């Protein structure tokens, strides 16, 4: 079988499988990014809190999720999640061992890891918002909710975008690790294709190229978004 036949989209080729797997990788990373944004903004709020205890909690989260290998975290959620679900099942009189859906486990694991990095991004963005603008909002009598909605969020978003681009790329690459728990994403699909055709080199190269396309395209997209949100900003004189 030659290369074109192997990669074709027909019955004999692996093209369709790889394309579906790439979509799965994108979906997984997107889900992880959303979970990460939710948890990450909470962690960032904790880190910026006035109370020392809450600050310590936020810091502990960062240390844990940035210091423990991603693979271990994934194992924890996969095996641990299965034990917990099985226990609950037994509680209600169920039998045997219940598996948890790998997509859910993967999205949560990669999401929580991404949250620890996103928290830093949001914290930095919050600090970058000029204090004078918040004081001005306070001075004209904006309520707390309005200050957050009209002054903080639009600016944090703008400052956080470059950092979010990096976190996205990182999560995209972390999502490859979900292949170990059997979710058929790009890495797993390349593995399966490589194993059944015995063309390991070819299919890992193809898988790698797919990842390069994904990271390249999404990097482009983030650059576009950055220049879009920055078009109303004054140009930094140091960069001109």
């Amino acid at each position, binding site marked *: 079988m030659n290369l074109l036949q192997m990669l074709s989209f027909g019955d004999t080729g692996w093209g369709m499988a790889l394309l579906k797997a790439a979509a799965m990788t994108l979906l997984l990373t997107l889900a992880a990014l959303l979970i990460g944004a939710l948890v990450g903004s909470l962690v960032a709020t904790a880190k910026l809190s006035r109370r020392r205890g809450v600050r310590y909690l936020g810091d502990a989260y960062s240390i844990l999720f940035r210091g423990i290998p991603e693979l271990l975290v994934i194992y924890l959620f996969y095996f641990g999640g299965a034990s917990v679900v099985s226990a609950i099942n037994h509680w209600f009189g169920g039998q045997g061992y219940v598996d948890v859906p790998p997509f859910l486990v993967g999205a949560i694991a990669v999401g929580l890891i991404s949250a620890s990095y996103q928290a830093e991004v949001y914290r930095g963005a919050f600090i970058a918002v000029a204090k004078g603008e918040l004081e001005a909002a306070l001075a004209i009598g904006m309520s707390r909710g309005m200050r957050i909605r009209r002054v903080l969020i639009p600016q944090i978003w703008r400052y956080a975008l470059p950092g979010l681009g990096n976190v996205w790329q990182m999560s995209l690459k972390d*999502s490859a690790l979900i292949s170990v728990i059997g979710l058929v994403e790009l890495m797993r699909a390349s593995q399966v294709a490589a194993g059944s055709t015995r063309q390991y080199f070819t299919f890992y190269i193809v898988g790698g190229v797919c990842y390069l396309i994904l990271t390249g395209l999404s990097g482009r997209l983030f650059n576009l978004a950055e220049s879009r949100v920055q078009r109303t900003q004054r140009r930094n004189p140091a960069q001109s």
Partner: protein
Amino acid sequence: MIDFAFLADTMLKLLGALPTTLTLFFSSLVLGLLLSLGVVAMRVSRWWFLSMPARFYIMLFRGTPLLIQMFLIYYGLGQFPAIRDSFLWVVLKSPYGCAVVSLAMCTAGYTAEIIRGGLQSVPHGQIEAGQAVGMNPWTLLWRVIAPVTLRQALPAYSTEAILLVKSTALASLVTVWDVTGVAQQIIQRTYRTMEVFICAALIYLVLNFLVVRAVAWIEHRLSPHLRERPQGVPTKPVPEATPHS
């Protein structure tokens, strides 16, 4: 409630795999650093036929997951008789060798960018001053550019070192019995996820803490001139200028 005997037993088993993790880390750190020096030297070259391959290398290794790079080297390269017959096979026939090679190549891509960032932070005036006093390019590199670059790049490099410690866990997927590999084995045998996870996580956290402290110590040693003078230490008396008669 807490089964201390099991915890101690697990910890001992995991610590038994610690040397593998440590040697994986140090050998790929050193190899990666050497490789990255070559890559960055090419990257900042003014000739395109040197800088383009370096750009390509960096894009390749930063744009794809480490896992696929490792599998490509471990499963993919062994498929070619030419490689099995060459001297490379001495390294690539063992999972451990493949893991070190892929870790080193991947970290070199990231480290090259960190060093490049450090290089760009060297003030242009300092280089011109060096040239003005007649330093040759090597002296200039050794005395002016390298020390400033090193100091600038260290904080980012400590992050990269931690990422490398975490990346060594992937070696367990090409059948190297490192801490993560052993932990996964114990989990699958006993299904006591939480206990095993806590032990393994503790080992990695301590390891990362030590890495951070070590880099911070190096940084401290490299920047005595930026620190405040300790109180109570007498400063050298400044010799009074002799008035011209």
